[in-house]
């Protein structure tokens, strides 16, 4: 159980890092396509980081 929970929280932290990187990409990239793609990745990873999906 402890191993499962540890893995779950590691996964959520990784998802949070990915979501953070996507925020950076949306704000800093100059190509609109890259910004939109980053946004599409941001939404599910943010939900996973929050543990609701």
């Amino acid at each position, binding site marked *: 159980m402890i191993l499962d929970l540890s893995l779950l929280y590691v996964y959520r932290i990784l998802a949070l890092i990915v979501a953070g990187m996507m925020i950076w990409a949306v704000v800093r990239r100059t190509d609109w396509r890259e910004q939109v793609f980053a946004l599409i990745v*941001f*939404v599910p990873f943010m939900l996973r980081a929050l543990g*609701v999906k």
Partner: protein
Amino acid sequence: MVWEYLKEPRKRGGLLLAMGLIIATAAGVGFRRMHQPEPIVAGPGVTTERMLSHYVSSLAGTPADTPVFILEGKQPGATMLILGGVHPQEVAGLMAAVLMVENAEVQQGRLIVIPQSNRSGFTYTEPLEGFPHEFTIDTPHGPRWFRVGMRLTNPVHQWPDPDLYIHPQTGEPMVGWEARNLNRAFPGDANGRYTHRLNAAIIELIREENVDMVFDMHEAYPEYPVINMLVAHENAFEVATIATWGLEARGIAMDLQPSPKLLRGLSHREVGDHTTALAVLGETANAAMGRFRGRTSSELVVGGRDRNYERAAGLGRLFVPFTEEGHPLISRAARHLATIEELINGFNEINPERQIIVSNVPEYEQLLQEGFGPFLRAVPQG
């Protein structure tokens, strides 16, 4: 002017990010709403209401904990456990259990009903399948809503899946996600993972309450061979045979199959092997679960009508008849209720000295004519 604004990358990024946060918030609220269980109103026959964690304390406060309704008669007799929602996508089991809780009254013996056996499975639907999250039934008191879940425990509650799931007690290998399948993990482990603790609590309930017979209500897609069928452990074959005769006499076609000895983790196998209870599982046909289905909507879940399945039946691809009337939820739940009645009749015939006598169970024909509405109670406000 808007175009000029969007041409500036930083401003465009800010706008997109705001949009993303709005979408994530709306989706997050939707996902969280699915964790709210549907209301079930205890009828006049319910004498005790408790949580399943009463039997395995490690479930307390977890999303696995689920209500247990006990309907006890004044006269002593045998005890029957009725399981709905072991697979939360198979909603006829949930509805039959709800009808029992809200209507049945026990004169002799006891009924124990768990409508949402895997409550975690009611909190999500499978991605990319377009499943509805809930459906609504009209009643004289207003609409009542019920959740459509998925077969397995929510991965938010139990993760990760192993590559290969090995059934702990027998060593039978299965695909990894079956580690989250309540009906592949019996008899469970009180100190194990989430799903296994749930199994252990059900087994402990059976032992502690001296349950004599268990009926586990399921559904399957119409192209599945085990459908409109009872699957019985060898210890329950006599009672299940009498029940199928009773159903056939009422014009309700129901086959009977012995529980395979090498298929492990299922209630009809492990409950029979690990407790003294007679173990029977029932299956009805749910078109919303199959691969031939068309648009997956709450209308399909409730109405059970699908033109693709009519065509598949015409091509001889199904194991049940499928006409334009389909297999509505009301007929599937009514079939489970009629099976409960006939299992009780069978048990009483074999054990006349300790019977179970139940009244006010909605009749099969009555349900088909009047629908769920008259048999669902008003939900108390506040």
